[in-house]
């Protein structure tokens, strides 16, 4: 039999390495009986499309960032809030693979969309790109920052003092080059692959959050699998998570080195604790935004429960991060 696994990223990006390792492991474990066919960025449509196709059962596995999943499972955007997960590699990994909050409270919400959450992966710290050093919210003033257009990132950069600007992916390079926008936000390996380092003079590391990818399967389909096959999937997920983790660290390091060789004049700014704490304080206001976003997704009668639930998820998540640090 053939299982289908779609990711939102290109060949040799972190999610693709995850999918490849998953496919190899499944092939080995099943003695070659089960093949996993991988689809990468755009082959089967948009991020929304592959999530819907997995929820429907046309595809069996899907990996997308928390931002895109938020259109279906608004609670997952707790992980998109700045300064919730932080950027300590070990803490982030511990939470993303083993958090009680994520794998009991949050994964319940996945079932509603007929999805089953298998694991989450960090793809590295989100760095800010710009043409000036940004250390304070005042530095952000008047800066047009290209973000994903969903509410949480838009409100995040508004809160930080910038002008969040929507722009489709293909237009970003040209827009940065011609200064239609001033900056963008992405993990380092991604910035290098998109060549955006060619058109930015500064890279900032604010310790804000990692880019989080989520791996899910079709819930109904998974539950109907034999126990043996379910165990096989879980094993392959564990192996793939390890591979993606190693790869993420390596490719981010490697691409950072390449950026510095190709652009020796590009300045890297690592915000210190004082500077970070100002942004962290500003981001507290976004928790309210998150509750509103979740509430908005529910019918009138469920709104207050949904809000409480979202609050519970976020608060225990923050507690878990604190305990792990």
């Amino acid at each position, binding site marked *: 039999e053939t299982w289908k696994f779609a990711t939102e990223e290109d060949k040799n990006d972190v999610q693709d390495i995850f999918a490849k390792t998953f496919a190899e492991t499944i092939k080995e474990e099943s003695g070659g009986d089960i093949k996993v066919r991988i689809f990468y960025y755009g082959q089967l449509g948009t991020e929304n*499309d592959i999530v819907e196709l997995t929820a429907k059962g*046309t595809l069996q596995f899907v990996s997308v960032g928390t931002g895109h999943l938020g259109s279906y499972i608004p609670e997952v955007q707790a992980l998109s809030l700045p300064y919730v997960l932080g950027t300590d590699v070990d803490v982030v990994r511990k939470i993303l693979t083993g958090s009680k909050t994520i794998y009991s409270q949050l994964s319940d919400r996945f079932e509603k969309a007929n999805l089953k959450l298998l694991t989450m992966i960090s793809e590295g710290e989100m760095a800010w790109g710009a043409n000036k050093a940004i250390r304070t919210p005042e530095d952000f003033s008047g800066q047009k920052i290209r973000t994903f257009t969903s509410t949480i990132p838009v409100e995040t950069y508004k809160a930080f003092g910038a002008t969040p600007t929507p*722009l489709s*992916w*293909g237009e970003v390079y040209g827009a940065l*080059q*011609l200064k*239609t926008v001033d900056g963008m936000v992405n993990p380092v390996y991604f910035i290098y692959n998109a060549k955006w380092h060619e058109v930015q003079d500064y890279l900032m590391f604010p310790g804000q959050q990692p880019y989080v990818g989520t791996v899910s399967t079709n819930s109904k389909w998974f539950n109907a699998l034999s126990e043996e096959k379910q165990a096989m999937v879980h094993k392959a997920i564990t192996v793939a998570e390890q591979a993606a983790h190693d790869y993420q660290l390596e490719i981010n390091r490697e691409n950072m080195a390449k950026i510095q060789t190709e652009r020796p004049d590009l300045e890297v700014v690592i915000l210190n604790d004082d500077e970070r704490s100002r942004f962290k304080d500003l981001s507290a206001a976004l928790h309210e935004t998150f509750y509103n976003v979740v509430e908005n997704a529910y019918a009138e009668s469920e709104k207050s429960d949904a809000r409480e639930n979202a609050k519970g998820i976020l608060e225990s998540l923050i507690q878990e991060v604190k305990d792990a640090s």
Partner: protein
Amino acid sequence: MDMFFDFLKDIIDGELDIYVITFTLLFTMIILLFLSFPMVVPLAAGALIGLVHFSDIDTGVMIQQMVTGISPNALIAVPMFILAADIMARGHTAHNLLGLVEAFVGHLRGGLPITACISCTLFGSVSGSTQATVVSVGQIMRPKLLQAGYKDSFVMALIINASDIAFLIPPSIGLILYGTLANTSVAELFIAGIGPGIVLAILFSIYCYGYSRLQGDRITLVPQKSRTERIAAFKKALLPLGFPILIVGGIYSGAVTPTEAASFSVLYALIVECLIYRELKLKDILDAALGTGLITAVVFILVGMGQAFSWYISFEQIPQGLLAPLELEGASKEYILFIIALSFFIGCMFVDSLVVLVILTPIFVPIVAASGLDPVLVGVMITLQMAIGSATPPFGCDIFTAIAIFNKPYMDVIRGTPPFIIILAIMSALLIFVPEIALILRDLAFT
């Protein structure tokens, strides 16, 4: 013979072999195409047969993918450029641009068709679509050319092919879309389109001159314009000429994205035609918007259905399978560029060029990246093929546009195209072996 029956049996059984699938889908689609089904039907049939007969996938995915196909933000440029061009064609802009060119070269041997070529180049700098160019330049130039004694087959072929120039000169819908799909700077693509656009205009003009010589005394020459007439024509063309400056300036100063520039071109056209020339009334604008929406829908339903079809062939990984024997990995750059050009040329002969772009670009992007080919050069080449395809039988949107506005049967419209297609093939070869035609301006501007 046995092999043939095995093949038929495979088809009937719905056996999964990419060659069987490809053959069945292509065969069905070509039959439906030649039976003159609305273009959306062959694409829908291809997707339906694949999904239901060969794969057993819920056909609901077609609806989802139709929406995905029409969702890229860059597509907004299509209706906006069409609307801008329509407004300009209804008003004075196109007339004034043509008047300028005619005042300077109209009197030469072959002067009128050369005027058409140069006008397409100029009009191209205010319009992003070949169709709009066919309409505006065609409607003004065709009566003059016929009156001067040129054959209608030559005139119509000239107009639908010269519109290709407008597609290469920025702004261009093809370049914007390619840039978006291939994640390549549209600003660089725009600059790179200028060189090939001008070379093409020169090649066409040479042909026009030769054709006019051969026809000899059948063609009456237009008297040379006086200096005062020329100055008057220039003054009249000033406002329309300000247009490309504004658009290109807006993009290169970073004020607007190329997609937004399309909307600004509508705004500019409205200001010039309604406030300054005071030629157009509210009713004209509403009519133009309705006409634009109609064309947009007719094309976009194909883009959407094309995406549904392309989803299916991606799902079965058919393009990768078909391209594998061509051994593109590790091949020479010229060979890869040739294969890309050929694929787009053949694709655009049958399917709307925007649909071909959406289907084929993602397949070639990784190959281009691995080969070290300049993605900007590839974009210009692809856009040239799309432009050629728009005028190449059997299927070409410019041919249909010409049929619609000149009210002529299909065969009459395409009769004169072969010489032009030969010139366009030469242009494609030039681009492969002398890529500097496209890249030199880009390198000057961006390094």
